Every structure is written in C-alpha cells, then in structure tokens.
C-alpha cells in the first residue's frame, strides 16, 4: 500500500501544529510513501507526532519562519532523489485530491511548477476580510513580478525536480510566497495555476495571515531586493 508515488515527496512546514499535524500526515501517508515535515523549531510535540504518524522529520534548531522551512523541505526532498516535490500546508486546509490533479498537470505538460489557485477553484467558508486581503496581495504580486497570478499566497505547489532546483528561497518569513513567484518569472520556469479548494476552518484562520502582516511582507521584499 505504501508503494504509491515513490518519486513524490510531500513537504510540510510546521510550527507548533501538534494538534493537527498527526491527522494531516496520516491522511497523506495513505496515498504517498514520502512525507517530510520540517519542524520549524516548535515548542510543542509537532516533530514527535509527525514522526509517529509516519513522516520524516527535519527539525530546525531555531525558529526561522515558513519560507526557510519550505526551502529546507525542498533541499531535503531533492537530496533524497525526489522527482516531484509538493509543498503542503500543515493546518489541513489543502485537499489530497488537489495534489493529484496538480501532479497530473505537471506531468502532462512537463512543467517546472504548478501552483494551486483558490480563486480559479473554490473556497469553503472564506471570510470577506480574508478575500479582500488576498486580492490585494494578488494585485501587489502581479504589479511587482509581472506574472498574471490569480492567487499569490497559496501554499499548495507541485514542483518537478528540475523546477525545484532553480528555486532558492531567501525570504525566511512570509514574503517567500511572492519570492517564489518572482523566481519563477526571473528564471523563466514553466508554470501553470491549477484550481484547488481551500477548506477554511477556525484553526486555519487563526493560524493564517492577518492584514497587519502584509506591511512586514512588503518590507521584507524591499529589503531582499536592496541587497541583491
């Protein structure tokens, strides 16, 4: 049963997600033999729970942020010989069916990367304030990268090994989502957006991005540009 999708690595960045990570990993392990959780220096038992649930656990000795954790996951997956690498959120807002459909698109069109888009697909229980914030983020990303994305901050992405090797995330915190789009544009990677469904729960909303974070994301992006 565990022989499925051996060439695929599912990568989950997790920081203090002990209450949900076990369930997310178990569900994924039913379909994918390689699941890796990057425990971003959690103070709870996230790493142990993920390991018990059947994931590889890579633990940052200090908390570095989601961007750093995703890059660690990509580096680890590539070092294990992955052909395809999937970034998946720890809070259970993504659906495994969507991974499969994105995976099919990447294989079929020989893409470097497929990004999930909740605005091409559907959302369950998304609050209006979150919708406005995300739409603004999309405008910002379109303006700064020139890429006509429909969803700038979707955590669900499927990379081919070829695509993943060309991504190097230096934005440790939340600005990595824009940075990935920037690099896709700058390195002319082939990319397609695939409709996905995001399940909004009280848990994922509480963990998600607030309007107050957008300013620090913009500062991080400007800072990153300044020193390149």
């Amino acid at each position, binding site marked *: 049963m*565990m*022989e499925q999708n*051996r060439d695929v690595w599912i990568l989950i960045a997790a920081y203090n997600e002990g209450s949900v990570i076990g369930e997310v990993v178990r569900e994924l392990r039913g379909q994918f*033999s*390689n699941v*890796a959780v*990057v425990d971003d220096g959690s103070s709870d038992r996230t*790493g142990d729970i993920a*390991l*018990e*649930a*059947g*994931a*590889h*656990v*890579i*633990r*940052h*000795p*200090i908390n*570095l942020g989601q961007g*750093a954790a995703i*890059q*660690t996951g990509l*580096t*680890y997956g590539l*070092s*294990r*010989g992955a052909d395809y690498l999937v970034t998946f959120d720890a809070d259970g807002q993504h659906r495994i069916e969507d991974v499969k459909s994105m995976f099919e698109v990447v294989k079929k069109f020989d893409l470097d990367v497929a990004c999930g888009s909740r605005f091409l697909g559907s959302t369950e229980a998304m609050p209006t304030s979150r919708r406005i914030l995300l739409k603004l983020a999309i405008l910002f990303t379109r303006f700064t990268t020139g890429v006509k994305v429909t969803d700038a901050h979707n955590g669900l992405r499927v990379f081919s090994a070829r695509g993943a090797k060309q991504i190097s995330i*230096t934005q*440790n915190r939340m600005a990595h989502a824009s940075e990935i789009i920037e690099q896709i544009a700058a390195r002319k990677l082939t990319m397609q957006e695939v409709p996905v469904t995001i399940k909004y729960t009280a848990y994922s909303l509480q963990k998600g991005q607030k309007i107050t974070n957008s300013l620090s994301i913009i500062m991080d992006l400007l*800072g*990153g540009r*300044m*020193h390149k």
Partner: protein
Amino acid sequence: MIIQSILTILALVVICLGLVHLGRATILANALILSGGFGIYCVWNPSSTTAVAHVLGVGRGTDLLIYLWVVVSTALVLLLYIQLRRQMILITNLARHIAIQEARRPATNRTEVEP
C-alpha cells in the same frame, strides 16, 4: 558654558574609548578619536561650522550638522539592515544543514530505497 562642558566630557569619553580600542580595532578607534576631537572643536568654535555652512548655502552650522547626521545615520541603518539580512541567511543555511543531517526517519517506512 554648562552644555559645552557636558559635551566636552562626553567627547573625551568617546576619545578614551578610541584610545582603549587602539591596536585592536584600528578603524573604529581612529573614527572614535577623530569624531571626539571634531566634536570638541565644534563645541568650542561654533562659528567655524557656520562658516562652512555658509559656503554650502546652509544658514547655520547647526543645521549643516543635522543634515549630515541624517544622511550618515540613514546610511548606517541601511548598512546594518543589509548586514543583518546576510547574517540571517548564513544562520539559516547553518540551521538547515544541521536539520537535514539530523533528520529522523519513520520506523515503519521500510519501502524507501537508500540513496
């Protein structure tokens, strides 16, 4: 005279700090000694900075120093920011290296082929 005395003492402290560092961090030490000396000179000869200010088209010497200070401190903040970002990237790479080296694999996963 009170403010001049206070500023002079502070400048002397800066110069002493410079003298202490002399030999270890030469650039820093020289900068401290020079800026301390320049400070004392300006405190006791305020008209000298005003003369320079007039040449540059600024009304008062004090204003000239304020403008210079804004420019210098902004540049310092930017340099520090860049330096911090570089350090963060180094720390991140180090932490990533350690994390990957110490990766834990699930006991039940026997299907995986060793690379």
